[in-house]
């Protein structure tokens, strides 16, 4: 393919993904309800399904995924301040890991035994994404699990719907219930609840802002700790998908090696950026970089949504996976309320 033809082929998908992501970023300034990634992803599904023949989007959306996931993770690293993470109470780290285990287990058990879904890959992707970092984690997991389009779309839908239910329940319902039976939550306890249970950074920030602005900083620091597990969790999901994938497609040995090399590369980008920004005082530039991070990562999500066929979403498996994610969140929230009440004062 000649270079100029390739450039022409890339432009439509790239431009539409950029436009949707830019819109998401701009809307995110209107208020905490407008999560940039949510707008980019849902917008791209709507736009993508208005386009009948999507072949002209293939090249541009592919470039978004290949180039912008590493760049997006590099920029994500600049948003993570480890100086705040290491100040957290030890109990928070333990609760976060327990919650991650619960998300994986409950989603897998519900899908496998309650709903009889034999493709275990979607369970692992949803478990990982809900417990670590929502849409960003899903984008990273794709090459590690060799996830197919419907598996990715199903996971992203589960995260978005679970996140919506969880954020408003966390801000309005759980504190009221806890107030009745256990007493009013302290700011630290609420930060721990939002930071350890909600699946998206935007959801954590929104839930914290809706409750009390003073809880935002600690809640985000907790979420940053979970985000830092993105690469180890990706390798874990690769292992699970290969050995307990059920009816899901397995990766060849060659592809696995390539995925591990890719994982090392993006881990270096993410951790390199976050460590440099934490320990050299460059963190003061994080706010300047934030809009670029939102646009670039938003483009990777838009590139997934644009190719998503909405008719394929209306499959029993996808709905049941969403239900499993919601059940998992409810159990995680319940367990977290008890552990936070006991161990976080």
């Amino acid at each position, binding site marked *: *393919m000649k270079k100029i033809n390739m450039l022409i082929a890339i432009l439509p998908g790239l431009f539409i993904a950029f436009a949707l992501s830019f819109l998401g970023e701009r809307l995110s300034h209107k208020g905490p309800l407008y999560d940039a990634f949510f707008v980019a992803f849902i917008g791209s599904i709507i736009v993508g399904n208005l386009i009948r023949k999507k072949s002209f989007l293939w090249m541009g959306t592919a470039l978004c995924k290949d180039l912008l996931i590493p760049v997006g993770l590099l920029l994500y690293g600049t948003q993570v301040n480890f100086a705040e993470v290491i100040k957290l109470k030890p109990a928070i780290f333990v609760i976060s890991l327990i919650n991650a285990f619960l998300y994986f287990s409950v989603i897998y058990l519900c899908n496998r035994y309650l709903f009889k879904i034999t493709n275990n890959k979607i369970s692992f992707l949803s478990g990982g994404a809900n417990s670590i970092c929502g849409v960003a984690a899903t984008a990273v997991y794709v090459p590690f699990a060799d996830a197919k389009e419907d598996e990715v779309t199903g996971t992203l839908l589960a995260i978005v719907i679970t996140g919506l239910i969880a954020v408003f329940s966390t801000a309005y319902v759980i504190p009221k219930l806890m107030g009745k039976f256990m007493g009013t939550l302290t700011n630290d306890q609420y930060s721990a609840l939002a930071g350890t249970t909600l699946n998206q950074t935007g959801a954590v920030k929104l839930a914290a802002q809706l409750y009390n602005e003073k809880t935002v900083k600690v809640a985000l620091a907790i979420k940053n700790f979970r985000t830092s597990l993105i690469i180890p969790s990706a390798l874990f999901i690769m292992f699970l998908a290969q050995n307990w994938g059920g009816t899901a497609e397995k990766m*060849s040995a060659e592809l696995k090696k390539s995925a591990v090399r890719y994982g090392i590369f993006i881990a270096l980008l993410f951790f390199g950026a976050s460590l440099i920004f934490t320990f050299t005082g460059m963190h003061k530039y994080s706010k300047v970089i934030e809009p670029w991070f939102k646009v670039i990562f938003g483009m990777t999500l838009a590139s997934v949504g644009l190719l998503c066929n909405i008719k394929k979403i209306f499959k029993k498996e996808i709905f049941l996976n969403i239900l499993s994610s919601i059940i998992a969140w409810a159990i995680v929230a319940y367990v977290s309320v008890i552990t936070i009440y006991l161990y976080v004062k």
Partner: protein
Amino acid sequence: MAGRLKKIVDHVKARSFFNNLAISMLNMKLNTDVERFSDNTPDDPELEKKLIEAAKEVLGKDKFDLVL
């Protein structure tokens, strides 16, 4: 023996730094979604020949070094 087409696609993915772009280029050359090939996709010698030629172009190689 089924799954030969998927092996070729996986080989291209594994050998490409920009693997999504490589797959898209295969899609454009063959005018089909190569990601739908699975381990159970029946073999198709004619399609396999075209896929190998497309894979060589995408990988920038004269020889296709995968033993099927």
